[in-house]
């Protein structure tokens, strides 16, 4: 058997990767969707398809100035004022800066940062466990900086009682003031799915906001 194995001789050959094979270009598994199909929505962000789609011309500082407020607003809305929202957003932008050669080349680096911030917020809450989730539910009762946000806590409390996917799209749509197409790119799903989730969320919120004991709001 071994005498018949020319392969082992060939084992001494040097092998090199094809120079045109870049990260994600030929094994794009990092953009494989839940049904095994390439996740087209991610192309709106411009990564990681291996092809830069309409690269952004923003500097990092310009990205930060233009998007730190809506990014923070989404985290505040989704997690309440008491769950280190600033830390989460700061961390998301630091990650963008560390990888600016790649992130800055994306068509929409702001969507990348928003998604990282959402994941960080989610992971922090999960890591802290059930106790933190209870705290999260009570987060609306913690101190806010502005009175207008304090007045709207009953609404965001209700949002936090929605299924996670619905809560996420509501926060992105209204606190982030993002278009449906942008939300779809951030959460990695189809626009139609986002619209359906928003519709279901509004239906459920209508019920939650009119429950006895729930303030009607300002």
């Amino acid at each position: 058997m071994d005498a018949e194995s020319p392969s082992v001789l060939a084992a001494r050959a040097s092998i090199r990767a094809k120079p045109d094979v870049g990260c994600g270009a030929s094994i794009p598994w990092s953009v494989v969707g839940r049904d095994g199909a390439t996740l087209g929505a991610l192309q709106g962000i411009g990564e990681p398809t291996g092809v830069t789609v309409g690269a952004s011309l923003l500097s990092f500082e310009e990205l930060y100035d233009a998007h730190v407020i809506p990014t923070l607003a989404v985290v505040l809305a989704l997690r309440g004022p008491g769950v280190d929202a600033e830390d989460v957003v700061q961390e998301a932008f630091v990650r963008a800066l560390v990888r600016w050669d790649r992130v800055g080349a994306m068509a929409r680096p702001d969507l990348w940062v928003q998604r990282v911030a959402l994941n960080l917020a989610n992971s922090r809450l999960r890591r802290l466990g059930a106790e933190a989730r209870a705290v999260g539910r009570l987060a609306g009762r913690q101190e806010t900086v502005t009175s207008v946000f304090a007045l709207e806590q009953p609404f965001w409390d209700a949002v936090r009682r929605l299924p996670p996917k619905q809560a996420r799209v509501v926060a992105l749509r209204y606190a982030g003031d993002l278009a449906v197409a942008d939300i779809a790119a951030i959460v990695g799903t189809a626009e139609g799915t986002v619209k359906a989730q928003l519709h279901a969320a509004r239906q459920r919120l209508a019920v939650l906001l009119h429950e006895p004991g729930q303030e009607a709001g300002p």
Partner: protein
Amino acid sequence: MIDIDVEERARRAGEAARAEAHARGSRLAVPDRAPVRPRNTALLAAGVGLAALLVVVGVATRAVPPQLEIDPVAPVPAESGAGLPVPDVGDVLAAQLADGAPVFVSQPVPGDVLVLDAVDPHIGAGVRKLLVFCRLSAVFEDPRDGSRFDQWGNWLGGPAPVGLALYPSEPTPDGHTVEVVGDRRPAPARDAPRGGPGEVQGGTCQLDEGTEVSEWVAHRPPESVPSLNGTEIPRDRWVWASLLLAGPVDRLVICDADGVCGTGPIVATRLGLQTDRELPPTTFVALARSTGDGHVELVFPPAASHPFDLVTFIEVIDEHEDVAREDPTEPTTRP
């Protein structure tokens, strides 16, 4: 009507959130470019880069096991008679049974503990691979081909034909561990889930560099993986092994990283390869088990490129190949 009311209320609440963010924005500082932090661990997107790393490992030196592109939780070794630790509610542990079989211990709801097969039921390109658990989404995922399963092992999507197989288990009296008490049970059909409902979290781990490595639970090879040839792979027990796979695919042999080949198992048929192709010699790390009938079963780590990706993505440099053909140094054959 109700919808419009909620819409207006939502817009107002959104404006309030942005006002709050604006007020808090002054507490934030623009991250400084100067102190760029070192990157923790290479993350998930570098499949081909890993492939390149894998193949430039020469066979003249002992192979360095390829590093996984993730930094998962180390598997919990299970000794015979010892139970498997029970994870926190909502969490999952990677473990191996006494025979080395890779499993996940999952507790989706309090008191509901499952020991699930960690091998993806989808066999892509004739190759079996391990799944990972994403804590952000609470979903078992195949990062290579996209199959997804909930914490009960039910199929959620992707090419896998069924859900995850289950090992029947019972909790030990102290409640901190479970013991596997029977043989592996068949996997549930796609349309016949075994439990649930599986609440899938909103997050995703398919986020390349934005996802923290700590959010993955997966099996990975130990720091030091033995270099085994075909005859040294144990029977009916799974071991991590560094292997060299080479030759015409209808006569594949397994050699160790020094080029010493065993006369033992042929793997081509088990891998379901086309027999008219020549496989470039490739060192790789996998879970391996001899079935005792002349075959070796292989299960590849999650996110690793396996040798049959490499067939597609590498080319042999011609001049070196010529040199190799003239190289009189035959590999020694183990008696």
